[in-house]
């Protein structure tokens, strides 16, 4: 049982994700999470402001079911299948995070500095979450996909555009962590 309660190694979760992609292909769909953000825009009535949001969102209902599954999975994983949520990241990573002011590094699942309810009264933390989300949503649609659509579905289908997008993900991520983090934390 301990195997289930402990964090799952990459060679378990990687194949599981591939299996999800396989199942979606077998029901005639494709694996891509960020499309749901566009669907949610359309449901909220964004079709009135841009043609980009004028599409039959009901045809995308199955993808919202995947989102629902991810929520339930997170609930079960966190509440029933885990006894210690601390993440054993590399000691050097912990040390760097501590110097940046992230005291919770190595002791929690997410940095409490950003994901504890206390952040709702912390303007800087809220701005970080909001700007991060904004960039993710904008970038994913501009690139035509996110980690699931490009890095997983696209690369699996040996698509050059997806490789360019993944390269972009890393240019952006490395820039943020090595050049911008020292400025904001």
């Amino acid at each position, binding site marked *: 049982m301990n195997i289930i309660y402990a964090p799952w190694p990459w060679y378990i979760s990687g194949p599981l994700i591939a299996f999800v992609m396989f199942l979606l292909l077998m029901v005639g769909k494709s694996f891509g999470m960020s499309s749901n953000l566009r669907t949610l825009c359309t449901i909220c009535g964004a079709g009135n402001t841009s043609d980009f949001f004028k599409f039959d969102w009901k045809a995308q209902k199955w993808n919202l079911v995947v989102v629902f599954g991810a929520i339930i999975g997170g609930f079960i994983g966190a509440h029933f299948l*885990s006894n210690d949520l601390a993440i054993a990241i590399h000691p050097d990573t912990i040390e760097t995070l501590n110097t940046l002011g992230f005291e919770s590094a190595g002791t929690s699942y997410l940095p409490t500095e950003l994901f504890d309810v206390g952040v709702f009264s912390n303007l800087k933390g809220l701005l970080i979450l909001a700007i991060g989300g904004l960039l993710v949503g904008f970038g994913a*649609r501009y690139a035509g996909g996110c980690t699931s659509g490009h890095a997983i579905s696209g690369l699996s289908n040996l698509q050059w555009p997806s490789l360019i997008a993944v390269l972009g993900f890393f240019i952006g991520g490395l820039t943020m962590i090595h050049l911008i983090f020292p400025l904001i934390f």
Partner: protein
Amino acid sequence: MFKSEAASWFRIYEMFRFESFHMYGIIGSTVVLGVLIVQSIKRFKVRSFYGEPIVFTPKAKSVSRYLFGGIIFGLGWALAGACPGPMFTLVGAGFTPILVVIVASIFGTFLYGIVKNKLPH
């Protein structure tokens, strides 16, 4: 996603510092298996559970949209520490501040829809 820690901000940070194999192992093993799955479906003309052919739509050829879009996405991925799948996993896990990230990402998608025609694709 939750149990493999791929939904953890810390793991994303660590990945971009190249200090652990964990995230590369997840993405790498998924892609290796994914390539095998997709290539076998194509070679053996596997049909879906409903008996229809499985079609793969190739991505439109371009560099700028994938590169620029990718960079913007990467900046946000590293900052918020979550991409569009794990975001929802974290809602289920009970981290309410992730809702700020989700609402903002929906708004980001909306902004893209508005300025789309002015951007190089």
